[in-house]
């Protein structure tokens, strides 16, 4: 790019830099407060960074039995990973069948799945809680996981993806004597890594960050996810500021890492979700 062009673009860059700075402030605040003492955070003399970073805030966090952060992290990790694996598996299976296996009743099934797509998820949390209580899923990890595994939306996206998959490959496989299952497992699934990564990362992030459903189902501290732990922390009478921010940092760091490493796929996933693919 020539010099003239850069000069022309200067106002644009300045504006972008200003907005970028605003967008980074919350991250800065987590880091700043997580490494300070309570006195430093609440001091009337603003310090941009602590002169003596309090790394001990983090170890204190994991030793505090009143704030079950370790349990929360373990719950969230298990819940997010299991949701991710089973949602991808069941959705790709159903998507493949709906796109490629001719059978009577296929349209009815597809219509049924589309119909559930129309229901706003958060709105049904009261009756879903009732069903889950009936099934004995309250205060269990599977109770938190199960409704998140079945997503009409990702079934729909897998179906669209397999509709565009070249039929030649599939036919060649059939001629070689592969069953429908063989075609799916050996030919389609290995060629679906892009969509699986794209939707998988979004599923993982959504599951880790979910709040309402884990709050409703996980009432006992043993079933709290990271988000519920943080929320409980936030509403407790005696707010321990350094610990609160250390907890926030621990809760958000794995995701920021996943985000940075997987950004390419997340962008793809966002486009899928916005109907741009």
């Amino acid at each position, binding site marked *: 790019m020539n010099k003239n062009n850069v000069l022309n673009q200067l106002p644009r860059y300045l504006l972008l830099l200003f907005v970028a700075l605003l967008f980074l402030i919350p991250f800065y605040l987590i880091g700043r407060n997580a490494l300070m003492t309570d006195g430093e955070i*609440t001091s009337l003399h603003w310090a941009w960074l602590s002169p003596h970073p309090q790394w001990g805030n983090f170890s204190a966090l994991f030793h505090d039995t009143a704030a079950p952060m370790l349990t929360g992290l373990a719950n969230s990790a298990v819940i997010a990973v299991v949701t991710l694996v089973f949602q991808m598996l069941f959705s790709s299976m159903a998507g493949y*069948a709906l796109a490629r296996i001719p059978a009577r009743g296929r349209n009815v099934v597809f219509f049924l799945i589309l119909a559930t797509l129309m229901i706003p998820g958060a709105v049904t949390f009261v009756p879903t809680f009732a069903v889950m209580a009936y099934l004995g899923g309250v205060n269990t990890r599977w109770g938190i996981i199960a409704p998140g595994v*079945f997503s009409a939306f990702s079934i729909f996206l897998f179906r669209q993806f397999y509709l565009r998959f070249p039929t030649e490959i599939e036919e060649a496989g059939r001629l070689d004597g592969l069953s429908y299952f063989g075609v799916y497992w050996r030919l389609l699934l290995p060629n679906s890594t892009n969509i699986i990564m794209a939707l998988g990362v979004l599923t993982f992030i959504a599951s880790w960050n979910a*709040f309402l459903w884990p709050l409703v189902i996980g009432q006992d501290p043993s079933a709290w996810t990271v988000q519920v732990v943080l929320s409980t922390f936030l509403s407790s009478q005696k707010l321990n500021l350094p610990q609160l921010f250390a907890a926030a940092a621990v809760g958000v760091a794995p995701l920021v890492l996943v985000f940075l490493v997987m950004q390419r796929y997340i962008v793809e996933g966002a486009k899928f979700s916005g109907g741009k693919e």
Partner: protein
Amino acid sequence: MPILQKSQADRSATFAFWAFVTPALLGLTVFTLVPIVWGFLLSLSHAQNTIHPGHFIGFRNYADLLTDEAFLKSLVTIFVFALFIVPLTFAVSLGLALLVNKIGWGRSFFRTVFFIPSAVSYVVASLIWKVSLFNGLPFGFVNHIIGLFGAHPVAWIGTAHPPWYWLVLVTVRLWLQVGFFMIIFLAGLQEIPKSLYEAAAVDGAPSGWPVLRYITLPQLKATSVSVLLLNLIAAFQAFDEFYNILGGSGASIGNASLARPPLVYLYSLALSNQDFGRGAAGGFILTALIFAVTLLQGRIFGFGGSEK
């Protein structure tokens, strides 16, 4: 293919089809369809302290809710919230997409910075907004910054009638979701054929606003509609930031009554008061409202499928 073999192939296809869709179908049935039916029956029942429908009372739960001032207030709250957050998110994400799309050097850097808040949960963001960014005491970040310009600290959400609480509630969601919609707009922008712009330049059309108005925005129509729709549906289901910033049903600190959206109200009805009948009825009212608003938007802007 001989007839016998064909019917055998049909049967194996039918078997494979059902084997492949059964897990998903079963799951969606148990965790979506059954709850809808169960919920509807609950909504017609007096279901205090029980998750079982049975004591049927007709539509009394609906009638009670529609005359319940707190519930009506929550509907007003969510309309006001949507009125702020939807246009604002639309404008900011489109603006950022246009800016990022125009620059050459540093594009991926800016894209990452605006998109990365999508990795943060509403709970963590609410925590930062409430305790640090918009803390009402002088050590809150925004109070510190406006203090540099000589302004007095503002009690953002701490007092009984805080003047600026909408700013706190709207900016947190804005920060969290703008990057996601910017990405969708960027994808839309990249699909616009370059030839359209070249033709406009050849015809001597001035660049800037006219190009945006007569080429870019019309070409982005499908994208714009899907952004509006996703955004609107999400806004009507707001829960996390209201619950965590203003305080939930049981939270002793906070200003929950200031702005209580329907989901927070239904949460306290069903989970704190154990009135599952009314809680379920409220869910259906809210769903109807979301459908109505979606249809209205479809009437005004189209559903985005008709062009091209």
